[in-house]
């Protein structure tokens, strides 16, 4: 029997993977071939999807991108024997783009069958939980603190400290909430984990529950991800069936169970307190802090709220040790980051590597520059609230502090590349428009300021009292920064001001005037 792998991840499906599978099945029937098709996650090399991997004595040989109409030709050419072909990239794990990564959180994604608990266990799954049970609640938190893991959802808050706070509150009903709202443009790492290795998230949440004494968890999943929903629900059922969720997790005496809740298309519900309101059945309005969710969170109970990647990284930290993880990275940014390359880029995909690689290396070397073939002009890092960086800042290392020092943020690790046809005044306008559409409405600078911001940018572009309106825009941005309750209104000025600072010519503004104003 010949085993081949074709991803069921929605990124691969969006590029035609289902038709390729059907064509292989049909061809096998017609030719009497004995093949088994495993539906794995994606390797993250989306410019090669649908990628077909054939198991051979040398390893898995990859072919991509494969169109359904070309499947028969490929079979003629000997794809099932791993023979050379112009679509062949050789053994996938030896392929430089793939091989040069440090895959810790994503170690299994693309390798295993995400629906199979046996496969998960055969590839090191649930080794972290085993160690966690040996270490006990305090031991787990120590290990996570040692690892230096910071929240991967955007704010970069140390995960271990958050867990310690919840663990230290008196015993009562506590919750683990996984933030799977992944709303930033340019990001898909959470989706890839949920579809490509859902058990690792379940294991991470279970370990979190044991660490702090929480017996129930919720995954708040954005409604734009129907495929993730199916994958997660199937995995949760399988884990429960196997006794890895429920009243007696893996025979340990600890109880932990969980469910998936669907969001309803509101970006602001990615903000943690707004997410909690939404889970409670209310409008997703941001709550003032304090109280912290760690003290008074979901349904008024102490709650850990972490991003998908943060939680999915905990099993490997428990398995290999906090020190092992901490030894990757630079400065206060420890471990690895799944960086997502998006926009107008040749090699769009997910690249997991230790912190410290420069923005230029990511965009030019790893991403291969634009797919349009035109020069890269700007990159937005960190989603719709992240700054636009020009080429002059490409030496910035990927590190929370280094980006902050240049008025940027790494957020959830999404990098969106634009070529030289981009109009940066339009991008600044869109940042305000997005803020206006998604504002929860609680504070005036965000709710009204964003609408006014669009108008002011329109006037600047139309050269109506340009100098005066440029000042008004800067003033408005400052008001939003200082007067907003959460980062939606507070950070929307970053894309706007960075566009204006680095690309003043698109606003008809003079670079010198801006420098003088600083």
């Amino acid at each position: 029997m010949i085993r081949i792998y074709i991803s069921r991840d929605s990124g691969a499906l969006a590029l035609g993977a289902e038709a390729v599978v059907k064509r292989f099945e049909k061809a096998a029937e017609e030719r009497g071939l004995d093949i088994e098709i495993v539906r794995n996650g994606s390797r993250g090399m989306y410019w090669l999807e649908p990628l077909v991997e054939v198991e051979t004595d040398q390893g898995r040989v990859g072919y991509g991108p494969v169109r359904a109409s070309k499947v028969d030709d490929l079979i003629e050419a000997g794809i099932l024997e791993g023979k050379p072909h112009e679509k062949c990239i050789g053994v996938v794990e030896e392929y430089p783009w793939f091989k040069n990564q440090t895959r810790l959180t994503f170690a299994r994604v693309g390798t295993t069958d995400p629906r199979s608990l046996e496969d998960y266990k055969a590839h090191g799954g649930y080794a972290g939980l085993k160690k966690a049970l040996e270490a006990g609640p305090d031991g787990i938190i120590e290990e996570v603190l040692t690892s230096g893991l910071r929240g991967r959802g955007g704010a970069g808050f140390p995960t271990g400290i958050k867990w310690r706070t919840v663990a230290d509150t008196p015993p009562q009903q506590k919750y683990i909430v996984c933030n799977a709202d992944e709303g930033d443009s340019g990001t898909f790492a959470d989706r890839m984990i949920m579809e490509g290795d859902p058990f690792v998230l379940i294991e991470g949440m279970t370990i979190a529950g044991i660490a702090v004494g929480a017996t129930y968890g919720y995954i708040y999943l954005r409604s734009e991800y129907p495929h993730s929903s199916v994958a997660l629900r199937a995995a949760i059922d399988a884990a429960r069936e196997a006794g890895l969720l429920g009243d007696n997790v893996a025979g340990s005496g600890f109880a932990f169970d969980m469910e998936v809740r669907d969001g309803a298309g509101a970006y602001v519900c990615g903000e943690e307190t707004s997410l909690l309101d939404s889970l409670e059945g209310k409008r997703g309005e941001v709550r003032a802090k304090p109280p912290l969710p760690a003290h008074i969170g979901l349904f008024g109970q102490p709650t850990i709220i972490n991003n998908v990647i943060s939680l999915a990284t905990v099993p490997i930290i428990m398995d290999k040790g906090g020190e092992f993880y901490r030894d990757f990275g630079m400065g206060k940014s420890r471990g690895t980051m799944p960086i997502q390359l998006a926009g107008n880029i040749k090699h769009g995909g997910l690249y997991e590597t230790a912190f410290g690689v420069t923005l230029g290396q990511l965009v030019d070397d790893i991403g291969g520059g634009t797919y349009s073939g035109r020069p890269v002009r700007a990159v937005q890092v960190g989603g719709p609230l992240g700054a636009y960086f020009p080429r002059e800042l490409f030496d910035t290392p990927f590190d929370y502090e280094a980006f902050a020092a240049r008025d940027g943020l790494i957020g959830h690790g999404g990098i969106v590349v634009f070529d030289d046809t981009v109009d940066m005044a339009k991008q600044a306008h869109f940042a305000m428009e997005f803020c206006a559409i998604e504002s929860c409405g609680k504070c005036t600078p965000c709710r009204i300021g964003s609408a006014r911001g669009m108008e002011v940018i329109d006037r600047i572009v139309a050269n109506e009292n340009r100098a005066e309106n440029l000042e008004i825009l800067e003033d408005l941005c400052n008001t939003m920064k200082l007067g907003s309750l959460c980062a939606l209104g507070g950070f929307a000025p970053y894309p706007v001001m960075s566009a204006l600072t680095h690309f003043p010519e698109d606003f008809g503004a003079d670079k010198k005037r801006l420098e003088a104003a600083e």
Partner: protein
Amino acid sequence: MQKYEKWTSERAIEIIAQHQDQKGATLPILHALQEVFGCVPLEAEPLIADALNITRAEVHGCVTFYHDYRREPPGRRVLKICLAESCQAAGVRALEKRAKEKLGVEMGGTTADARVTLEPVYCLGLCHSSPAAMLDKDVYAGLDEERLDELLKEAQA
């Protein structure tokens, strides 16, 4: 082929009852109603308020806050085009224009023959292969004019 059931309060009460015992049941109820009726009509609000023992204003606030909920059933198929930054960088604005012209509707509109509702969406997590779109629950990426036209045809079929 009628895709959605016609609204009746009996059926709505039945659906609400299936979900009302969950903690924080509002969103699960609204999702379930929309799944069956294609929308959450105004008449549903007092029924939900009643079942959950909250005010009608709270339910109304919820329905109107979230972008996903509709007041009227959509066309037979819903085509969402991603308009967020990564898709913009890959030229989605031109595709958006083309889709609007070919369907003869604005964003949020439904074609005269009630076949297609066109909506914006802000990121489908397919930005590695922007531009992207979603037709009901099927996803499409790496769109260009040719693939968009195929998609529009499929949507109108």
